């Protein structure tokens, strides 16, 4: 009997040892180094009340929140361990559904209303009001993405007015196009005519598309705003598409550009996407933002076409009188509504948004800083980058860059997926353009109704 008891105890002890060996070692409070000096105000160690070791899970891409930045922060805050995971939307939805949402969420500004609607985000208004480094007055207007019903949920890490028109000067000259002076207002139809001249077909192979493509939700929002309306009703319960003649005219034009083979489309997709397509010569013009100057600068010798030939103009206009660049492309950080460590998460948020990582981003050229006070860090090392920076500054002063209104009941990806599906059927001759637009209207409104019903 005793021997059996001894056997059982031995097994139990061994099992305990094995299991404890498997567990992740965590530093005890006694081992925490509290003597480290903070590098600046934003990376100060969190206060004594939170000296207990914790782990913050941050959903951010590695290239945006680097291991070096993590190491720098945790060196100053040894009680905090940061676990970075990829901010994949599907993964995020699954994590939230499972009740294990990351503490900090990185997402596009356009996703914020949907996240708010789903109850995923924490109200950061009081944190912003009390912060000494992140002041509301210092935030650029595009941060309005993160304000929903007067509540602030986050901020952009950086951004750019993303509907700028970028054209390959060499290809334009080759096609006999006389480009207008910089910062001129160019209409969509004018850009379309240029696209026709620059498109190159080799038999049934599209060698160069005159333009990457039109008809995204952002373009539709710009055109709708130009018409004096908006894509959505005041309460977001309805999408106004087929009842806005300007939008109908624009969508018809965009679909025909794809159908006639002057842009990529559902049945003739681009081999890559806008930025590399311009560089490889697959597209002669694209609608994109300031941020990609850094992409081109970093790979200037890799492409067939040279970035010095890429001229940036302000966003296109439908009527030719007013210009709206409502895209405000950019991603930011938010804090999860279910975080167990809101104060620690906010400290890290401050460090990322106003500390060294923010300065690094501003100097990199990857976007316009989210804080006005950091504009001074923007650099333009080459002549063509200076031209791009001048255009951005001109847009910030002369163009309405108020961020487009994002419908909280459905995602912009859904809008685009529905539209591409309709264009495909239109190009195949299965439906007329009127039916395509009517179906877009019906499907988008159904998606909104579904979103409202699930509220």
């Amino acid at each position, binding site marked *: 009997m005793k021997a059996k008891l001894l056997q059982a105890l031995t097994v139990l002890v061994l099992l305990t040892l094995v299991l404890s060996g498997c567990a992740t070692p965590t530093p005890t409070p006694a081992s925490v180094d509290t003597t480290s000096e903070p590098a600046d105000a934003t990376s100060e160690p969190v206060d004594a009340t939170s000296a207990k070791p914790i782990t913050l899970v941050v959903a951010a891409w590695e290239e945006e929140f680097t291991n070096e930045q993590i190491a720098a922060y945790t060196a100053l805050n040894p009680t905090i361990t940061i676990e970075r995971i990829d901010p994949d939307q599907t993964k995020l939805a699954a994590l939230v559904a499972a009740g294990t949402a990351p503490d900090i969420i990185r997402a596009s500004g356009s996703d914020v209303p949907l996240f708010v609607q789903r109850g995923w985000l924490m109200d950061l208004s009081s944190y912003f009001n009390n912060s000494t480094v992140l002041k509301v007055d210092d935030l650029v207007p595009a941060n309005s993405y993160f304000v929903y019903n007067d509540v602030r949920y986050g901020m952009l890490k950086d951004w750019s007015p993303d509907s700028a028109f970028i054209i390959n000067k060499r290809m334009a000259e080759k096609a006999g196009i006389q480009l207008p002076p910089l910062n001129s207002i160019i209409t969509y139809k004018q850009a379309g005519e240029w696209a026709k001249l620059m498109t190159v077909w080799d038999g049934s192979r599209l060698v160069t598309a005159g333009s990457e493509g039109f008809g995204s939700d952002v373009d539709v929002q710009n055109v709708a705003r130009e018409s004096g309306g908006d894509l959505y009703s005041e309460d977001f319960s309805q999408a106004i598409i087929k009842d806005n003649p300007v939008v109908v005219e624009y969508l018809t034009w965009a679909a025909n550009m794809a159908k006639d083979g002057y842009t990529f489309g559902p049945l003739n997709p*681009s*081999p890559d996407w806008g930025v590399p397509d311009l560089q490889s010569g697959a597209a002669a013009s694209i609608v994109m933002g300031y941020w990609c100057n850094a992409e081109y600068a970093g790979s200037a010798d890799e492409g067939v076409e040279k970035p010095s030939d890429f001229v940036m103009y302000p966003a296109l206009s439908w009527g030719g009188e007013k210009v709206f660049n409502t895209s405000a492309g950019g991603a930011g950080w938010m804090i999860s509504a279910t975080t167990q460590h809101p104060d620690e998460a906010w400290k890290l948020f401050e460090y990322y948004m106003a500390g060294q990582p923010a300065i690094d981003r501003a100097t990199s050229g990857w976007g316009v800083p989210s804080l006005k006070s950091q504009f001074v860090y923007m650099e333009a090392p080459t002549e063509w980058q200076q031209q791009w920076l001048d255009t951005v500054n001109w847009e910030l002063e002369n163009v309405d860059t108020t961020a487009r209104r994002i419908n909280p009941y459905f995602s912009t990806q859904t809008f685009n997926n529905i539209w591409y599906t309709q264009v495909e059927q239109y190009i195949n001759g299965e439906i007329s353009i009127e039916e395509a637009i009517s179906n877009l209207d019906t499907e988008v409104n159904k998606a909104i109704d579904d979103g409202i019903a699930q509220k």
Partner: protein
Amino acid sequence: MINNLVTSEKKIKFFRMGKRNWRKTRWFYLFIAPWIFGFLAFILAPVIVGLLMSFSNFTGGNFNSLKFIGLENYTEVFRDFFSSGDAWLALNRTIVFTLLSVFISTALSLSIASLLTGNIRGRTVFRVLFYLPAMLPLVASIWVFRSLLDNNVGVLNAILDLIVPGIHIPWLTKQAFLSLIIFTAWGSLGGAMIIYMAGIQGIPSELRDAAAVDGANGLQIFRNITMPMISPLIMYQSVLAIIGGLQTLVTPILLTPGAGGSGSMSISTIPVRDNYLFMVHVYQESFNRLRFGYGSALLWIMFVFILILTFFLIRMSKKWVYYEVDPDSKPGDK
């Protein structure tokens, strides 16, 4: 009194037996415990949660307003099926895709297995080459296929252009369904081929020799001996391929992404209409529109459909599958 004593004795015996049995079997239970735990936590529990989700308005984060909505999601699914919308298109395309891909894949793998069990020079090399696609990661294979089949910069069109100048077939758009079938057949060829080869090699050679002595030619031997003898394997392989075909998700999205996903390999994009399969619809509804309840209802309907189909196929197999013993017979039956 005597009765009571007998009963007590039986009880004692039972417990003693129980203890003895437990001693005998405890290691068995201990060893399978991790699997049982894994099954309960990672298979059974998610299945039950999925079932509950299909009766709810769950959108991924609406825990505060989560409510039971009965059969509403199921009603909507059937309404969508009958309204000729995306759900109907997806079901339609999936059935056609599954039937075609299973038929082509079975025919090809069976033919190649027959050839490679014969005396062909360099058959080991061919076996390796045909099995190789089964070892490649799916996304890598898709990437390679896209490079081969791209409308404008694809290798295949470049080769065709050398033969017939100016010809460029839009493999990934207008021929998207064909490309999907070819890719699926290519990818599933190796696994099925190995199984069929094992089956063919297991057929006693006397049967074929006897048939040859009787004057049967190669085709007759294949039809009357090889096919019946490996029919249980064809049945098994077909059922698995049909289930796999009905559950296809990633391939059409990444291989033929249409305009929305040009260049990028993103699961959020939508494939061209011809390749809008059922699981793509489930994915769109669940993760793009965040209708997890509706998406779960779609999945449960597919589950029931697969269950009925499998049951039907197994029942039907009695008519064409050759079993050396009657599958319905019981031990001792004559």
